[in-house]
């Protein structure tokens, strides 16, 4: 028996439309509906919030929000580039651009907004753009490329979007201006003081800001294109490209045309269940005027509306359940990074509540501005943070909770060094910690003590908290730890069964007690036993940094991982790969030829690495010294690809060749790589230097990254690529080279001293108390008084550096271990075999009959590899 299906038509496949579909198909009544989606854009829903990342290489596919197979699986008929044109409410039909007429039982409007174009003369001239869709960005990029450097871009509007657009134009190499009518930037989110600071910071990045200036006219040149902009103060601003970002307006035309009520300033009027006046028609997202009389231009409230409408339509038979989820308004708190500047605002940021007072902390030298709005009962109402938004995760839920503060408000804004020590700030259970998924502190605590979650990832999985924007994860971690500790679970951070200490503790012990060997440390501070593959390499790394000496000497040799032990990288079949250092990725043609010859003569597989060097694969233990000999003779040295130490300092070609570059990035990268080569650390270290803000070297994905500015160098720390990418944080801006080197020296030594085993800088920075700000104070202001020590340690490292390969070659004792079999020197390992592939070798798989590579085989200059 079949039931008659009802027809649902969704107009608009944007962010909220897609979320509605996802929520709808999960409802108990979803099976009774057939869904058709009309989309104006030529592609399925994508992540508009991260639109700007398209300029830095995120593809349209990567931005897509519709999981592959989702539409097909749920039988959803998505019609791309086919907008709805007319709604006939009486007949309950929608006509679309293609001419088709669709009947509906329920119609959901999710048409979003359109960018507002101020009605100034010339606003439609060639060279004028808006910033909302991928197609808009394609046009902007094409034009910026045509203009080349020296082109001038002007953004109208200094709000969130305008600043994002300005950042994009700067990155495209244009000289960029922002024109804002209001007296300050981001007038919606930040107050005057915050706006001033933001402006200073953004001007420091090379963007020119004109506040309190209106756009009067777009002046057109003879070619019919934008030539300049006329400002209300009479000035004329030369311009080749203009982006209008002066706010958005709800797209409510369809509703207006069919006589549905809309607000005075636009927006389709809906009730708490997101229904319009017509019970068959819903409106959600940016096109809706919510029950609280507001139009929300943010994605999170839109998502909540999507959820509400989906339940209301298909939430099952139970009327009460259907109505339980209502949209009555939302939190518009935001935290973002604009052009590398952290900005956050939450709650009543402007102190509009009666009787509210401000608590202010401002340090214009460090570029930090924090304001809290405190209510008459001593409760936190809202606030603005610029330059340091660390506390946002904690403050926002406090403000939403509305209870009187337990702590003096000054303490909440003072930098951690200055604030008197205090315990963790108590959040009430009902405080919403994750606003993306509306998870309260109480729910997180319950996940720990009722459902047995013991780690942040488990709590994330169980409550969904922290899986949206991610801004609450740090607070989440604190709550989980507190809860575990309250439950009597001590969070054990000891290194392994042999030491009850963390790596950082051991570092201090070795440093203070001057311990020189693993045995001594184990005997005096260990818990017995013989050590293991966890503590031995960790202690080896500490000793290498503090005691010095060759890493294979004496007892140290026994502590190293196999990679360090053989100064090469173990590969899957037991062979090794060899990576010579190529500082900054710069290499002469002779150097390239030499490496090529060595690889060819030893029959090795070669591949260019992501770190701008060349990896030679397939060497047996016996071959390693012979390969090093030739490399060292040709002037190469170990690239430390095997160690937990500095790998490469990647660079772009920089000012020397690149037409956009402002500094010699290759020169600096080489200098940095030579300075820090061989430095042992808790984990591998990667670095990069870019010659300008276009960031071709991807410095912000490195442990430390440097980006050239016209005034000096910006230093970023704590970035990471790989499995858990993290964008690096700006530690200091516009440094001269001497200060830059000193700051990196101290940052590295401080990290080496305090990090856990295998803790990358990204995790370390998120874990250590006080975070980025603390590191800044330690390395720039010497708040712990240890800088002299850190400097001395680094100076010692630089002086004592020696090439580990050359040192092995010079010592017959060390060389002896490089044989496959102690009792049959010269016999190659019969288990290490290869087969040919694409003109090179690769390890043979278990069922394949591969060939051994023996020195004897390497007779001529060309090695033939055959399968037997």
């Amino acid at each position, binding site marked *: 028996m079949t039931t008659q299906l009802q027809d649902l038509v969704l107009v608009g496949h944007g962010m909220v439309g897609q979320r509605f579909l996802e929520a709808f198909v999960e409802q108990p009544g979803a099976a009774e509906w057939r869904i058709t989606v009309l989309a104006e854009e030529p592609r399925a829903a994508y992540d508009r919030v991260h639109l700007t990342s398209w300029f830095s290489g995120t593809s349209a596919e990567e931005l897509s929000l519709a999981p592959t197979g989702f539409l097909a699986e749920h039988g959803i008929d998505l019609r791309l580039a086919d907008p709805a044109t007319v709604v006939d409410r009486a007949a309950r039909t929608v006509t679309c651009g293609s001419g088709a007429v669709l009947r509906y039982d329920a119609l959901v409007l999710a048409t979003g907004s359109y960018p507002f174009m101020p009605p100034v003369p010339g606003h439609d001239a060639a060279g004028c753009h808006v910033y909302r869709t991928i197609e808009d960005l394609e046009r902007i990029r094409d034009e910026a490329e045509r203009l080349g450097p020296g082109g001038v871009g002007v953004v109208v509007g200094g709000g969130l979007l305008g600043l994002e657009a300005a950042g994009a134009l700067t990155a495209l190499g244009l000289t960029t201006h922002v024109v804002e009518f209001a007296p300050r930037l981001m007038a919606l989110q930040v107050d005057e003081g915050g706006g001033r600071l933001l402006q200073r910071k953004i001007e420091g990045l090379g963007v020119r800001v004109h506040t309190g200036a209106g756009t009067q006219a777009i002046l057109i040149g003879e070619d019919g294109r934008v030539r300049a902009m006329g400002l209300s103060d009479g000035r004329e601003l030369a311009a080749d490209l203009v982006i209008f970002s002066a706010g958005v307006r709800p797209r409510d035309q369809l509703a207006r045309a069919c006589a549905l009520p809309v607000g005075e300033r636009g927006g389709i009027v809906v009730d708490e269940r997101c229904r319009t006046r017509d019970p068959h028609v819903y409106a959600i997202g940016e096109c809706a005027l919510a029950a609280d009389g507001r139009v929300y231009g943010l994605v999170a409230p839109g998502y909540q509306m999507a959820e509400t409408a989906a339940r209301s339509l298909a939430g099952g038979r139970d009327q009460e359940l259907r109505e339980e989820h209502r949209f009555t308004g939302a939190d518009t708190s935001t935290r973002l990074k604009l052009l590398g500047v952290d900005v956050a605002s939450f709650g009543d940021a402007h102190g509009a509540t009666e009787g509210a007072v401000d608590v202010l902390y401002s340090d214009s030298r460090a570029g930090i501005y924090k304001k809290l709005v405190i209510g008459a009962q001593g409760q936190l109402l809202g606030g603005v943070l610029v330059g340091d938004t660390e506390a946002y995760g904690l403050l926002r839920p406090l403000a939403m909770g509305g209870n009187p503060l337990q702590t003096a408000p000054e303490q909440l804004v003072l930098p951690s060094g200055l604030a008197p020590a205090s315990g963790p700030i108590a959040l009430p259970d009902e405080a919403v910690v994750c606003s993306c998924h509306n998870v309260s502190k109480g729910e997180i605590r319950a996940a720990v003590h009722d459902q047995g979650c013991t780690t942040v990832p488990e709590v994330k999985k169980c409550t969904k908290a922290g899986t949206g924007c991610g801004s609450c994860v740090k607070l989440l971690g604190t709550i989980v730890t507190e809860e575990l500790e309250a439950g009597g679970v001590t969070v054990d951070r000891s290194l392994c069964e042999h030491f009850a200490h963390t790596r950082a503790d051991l570092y201090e012990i070795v440093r203070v007690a001057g311990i020189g060997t693993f*045995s001594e440390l184990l005997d005096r501070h260990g818990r017995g*036993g013989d050590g293991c593959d966890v503590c031995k390499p960790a202690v080896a790394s500490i000793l290498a940094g503090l005691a010095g000496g060759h890493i294979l000497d004496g007892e140290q040799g026994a502590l190293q991982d196999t990679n360090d032990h053989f100064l090469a990288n173990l590969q899957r079949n*037991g062979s090794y790969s060899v990576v010579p250092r190529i500082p900054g990725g710069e290499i002469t043609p002779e150097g390239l030829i030499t490496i090529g010859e060595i690889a060819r003569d030893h029959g090795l597989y070669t591949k260019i690495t992501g770190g701008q060097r060349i990896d030679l694969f397939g060497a047996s233990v016996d071959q390693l010294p012979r390969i090093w000999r030739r490399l060292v003779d040709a002037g190469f040295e170990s690239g430390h690809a095997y160690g937990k130490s500095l790998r490469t300092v990647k660079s772009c070609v920089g000012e020397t060749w690149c037409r956009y570059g402002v500094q010699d990035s290759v020169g600096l990268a080489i200098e940095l790589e030579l300075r820090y080569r061989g430095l042992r650390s808790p984990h591998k270290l990667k670095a990069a230097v870019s010659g300008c803000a276009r960031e071709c070297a991807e410095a912000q994905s490195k442990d430390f990254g440097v980006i050239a500015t016209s005034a000096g160098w910006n230093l970023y720390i704590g970035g990471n690529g790989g499995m858990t990418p993290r964008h690096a944080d700006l530690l200091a801006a516009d440094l001269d080279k001497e200060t830059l080197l000193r700051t990196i020296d101290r940052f590295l030594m401080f990290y080496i001293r305090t990090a856990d085993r295998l803790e990358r800088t990204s995790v370390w920075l998120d874990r250590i108390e006080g975070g980025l700000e603390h590191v800044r104070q330690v390395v720039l202001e010497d708040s712990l008084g240890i800088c002299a020590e850190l400097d001395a340690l680094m100076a010692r490292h630089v002086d004592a550096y020696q090439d580990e390969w050359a040192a092995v070659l010079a010592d017959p004792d060390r060389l002896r271990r490089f044989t496959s079999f102690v009792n049959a020197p010269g016999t190659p390992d019969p288990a290490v075999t290869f087969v040919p592939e694409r003109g090179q070798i690769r390890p043979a798989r278990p069922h394949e009959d591969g060939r051994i590579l023996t020195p004897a085989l390497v007779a001529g200059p060309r090695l033939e590899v055959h399968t037997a």
Partner: protein
Amino acid sequence: MTEMLIRPPATDATTGMVEILDGRTWTRVCDYQELTPGRGVAALSAGGAQVAVFRDRSGALYAVDNRDPFSGAYVLSRGIVGSRDGVPTVASPMYKHVFDLRDGRCLDEETAPDGRPAVLRVWAVRVAATEGAP
């Protein structure tokens, strides 16, 4: 000619040739003093099998198969020697599985990816005090 037990007492005075037993024949590995405490070497048995021979910090000797059953690579001799709950161990350098050096059992997983038990063959090892084979 004297023979010592599989686990010689820890003494710096220990000299002599380390040997492993392949069924009937003892095969020379190397001089005892050549072994670094806490590390291993690979040796070929008379029958051509690959054997990993270790000396721990106390001076005791162990010999097990060189083949890591989890990766199929002959690399155990390059692992780190240590202890777990007092048991002498070696950790494979490939995927870090830890093996009991006394009986060759893997302490982390019972079964190798090929379905067979993850147990290494244990070889008899001794230090022959005199020069010349037995």
